């Protein structure tokens, strides 16, 4: 195995004989993304609509009722939540809450949905990024259940992809989610919902002071 390593590296070096040995990697000018402007929440909501990810905007005080209402609409009787999901978020829920303590995939498959927060959201692309941090849980939680209700604090919305990359740490496993799972493999007809959650709903919570 090690011999192959040496062989490949030697082949690479031989192939690059035209590159001066003391050449340093050239810096690359990267155009910035969309500028952060006032309308980020609107833009984010608009992009989510486009993916049919059903954004709903709520004030912080109304979040518990909004979570309960979303689950009621969905008819979700049993939902899994990350162990550290703020209790207040689900304080009005009638649904049975299953706190994740390492449920196996079959158990996750048996619940009706999942409620999480997120790490960062990207306005320009309508993307939610989960990094396994606070209120998000491990990756399988938002993958196996068929319904994902994601709570996005407006303060976490950034303008464009570069802002998100700058805020995230690659040390954590990251999942970028832009709308529900989809395929266009059959005659290019877009079908929503293949293996991931077939329904994604987003509650955008305006936080006091952000003016959102």
């Amino acid at each position, binding site marked *: 195995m090690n011999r192959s390593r040496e062989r490949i590296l030697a082949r*690479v070096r031989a192939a690059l004989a035209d590159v001066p040995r003391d050449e340093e990697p050239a810096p690359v000018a990267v155009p910035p993304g969309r500028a952060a402007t006032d309308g980020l929440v609107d833009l984010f909501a608009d992009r989510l609509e486009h993916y049919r990810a059903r954004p709903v905007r709520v004030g912080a005080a109304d979040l518990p009722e909004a979570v309960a209402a979303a689950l009621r609409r969905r008819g979700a009787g049993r939902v899994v939540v990350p162990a550290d999901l703020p209790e207040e978020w689900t304080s009005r829920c009638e649904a049975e809450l299953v706190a994740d303590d390492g449920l196996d995939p079959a158990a996750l498959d048996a619940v009706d949905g999942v409620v999480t927060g997120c790490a960062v959201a990207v306005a320009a692309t309508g993307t939610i990024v989960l990094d396994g941090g606070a209120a998000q849980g491990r990756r399988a939680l938002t993958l196996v259940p068929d319904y994902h209700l994601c709570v996005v604090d407006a303060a976490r919305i950034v303008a464009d992809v570069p802002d998100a990359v700058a805020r995230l740490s690659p040390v954590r496993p990251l999942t970028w989610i832009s709308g529900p799972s989809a395929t*266009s493999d059959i005659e290019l007809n877009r079908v929503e919902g293949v293996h991931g959650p077939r329904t994604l709903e987003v509650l955008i919570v305006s936080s006091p002071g952000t003016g959102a």
Partner: protein
Amino acid sequence: MSRTFLGMPPFPKAAEAAVADAQLRHNLHRATRTIRRTRGRAVAEVDDWEALRAAGAAIKDRTLRHLDRYLEQLEEAVTAAGGHVHWAVDAAEANAVVTELVRATGHREVVKVKSMATQEIGLNEALAEAGITAYETDLAELIVQLAEDRPSHILVPAIHRNRAEIREIFLRAMADWGRPAPADLTDDPRALAEAARRHLRERFLTAKVAVSGANFAVAETGTLVVLESEGNGRMCLTLPETLISVVGIEKLVPTWRDLEVFLRLLPRSSTGERMNPYTSMWTGVAPGDGPREFHLVLLDNGRTDVLADAVGRQTLRCIRCSACLNVCPVYERAGGHAYGSVYPGPIGAILTPQLRGTASEADAALPYASSLCGACFEVCPVAIDIPEVLVHLRERVVEQGGRPGERALLAAASWTLGDERRLAWAQRAAGAVRSLVPRRLPLGPAAAWTDTRDLPEIPAEPFRDWWARREKEDGR
């Protein structure tokens, strides 16, 4: 490369057969036109697309020019994050490494997320020989696998199949591989997708070993990145205990921040979306979240040969977006299978002959599978000058002494551009065979063609005009 393609007829013959298939041509035409339109909109939305494209090309060039140090850096970072790194000189070694890793787990089944590198090395067949079953989980790959077929497009590999055929395939073959399709299955795409979901669900939930590729590998942090739509990628990358990723050595990017460029370029250029539904990023293993064991297999398999050619090197910038396929008049007529490898279209026409060499007639004919219209260069998000590389490879074929191109282009003329254009095209290609084409393709008069503006539709005319004038001036 993939043994599924061995014995393929050379491009012109295969293309002739494809052109005769009206259903295939209709499917392809509709598909490429649709994707072109969507892509055009997604790209137009980005103000500084050209600057982004230049940045993408520059980052990849930078990676390639210092690939040895980035490979070492990647190995160190992945290892530090709890992963294991393996190196494979060629397909046989990569297959042996993966087979051994799967064997060591004690399991005999693996789930797979679509990966061109594993198709290139014929991994599924190698695993089958070792008694290990690989299940493709991407909807299109599932269709291809169930039909014992070959993929025909990078992005939509089953584009040559219509819904009625897919229904037939599901009804006939799903039962052989696991959960059968429901007897009352209709050809509604929704119903077909639902059947695939059910068919694969159980398999995902119980899978112990997964095999993937990667779109990017970050040298600085050891992070691997997979972009996908269906969620089958997330299933494979998250639920199993062991994850094995086979990644070509050209997939590296130097730094974490470089991803901000490619995450903007790839989805828009590929599916024409602002962002694809799911992107997974992982660095080694994460305790309590996802696989407990992670293996990265770094694959050469001819890539260092491409790297050694100063003109051909740019081919390794490719991020497999498939935009060049969708604008290519030759691809649209000939279909993906005619290229005789897992890499179809313009990128296949330059990558395959460099990876495999041009010793066989089939591979020597590939650089001629183009009318040099330049549309592929215009759309390429990393600005690969595909026509330049094509001409360069034609010269190489001619220098080798063999003239399979001559034969190839005679046959090719009848299918590529139709009778009325046959003569002009054949002359042009013959010119290339005789090395009369300038090394560097049009400058000056064709400035509109060579600059890096992106056009959503085939912008063939400026080049054709230039060419016609040039040929007149040459007195031919």
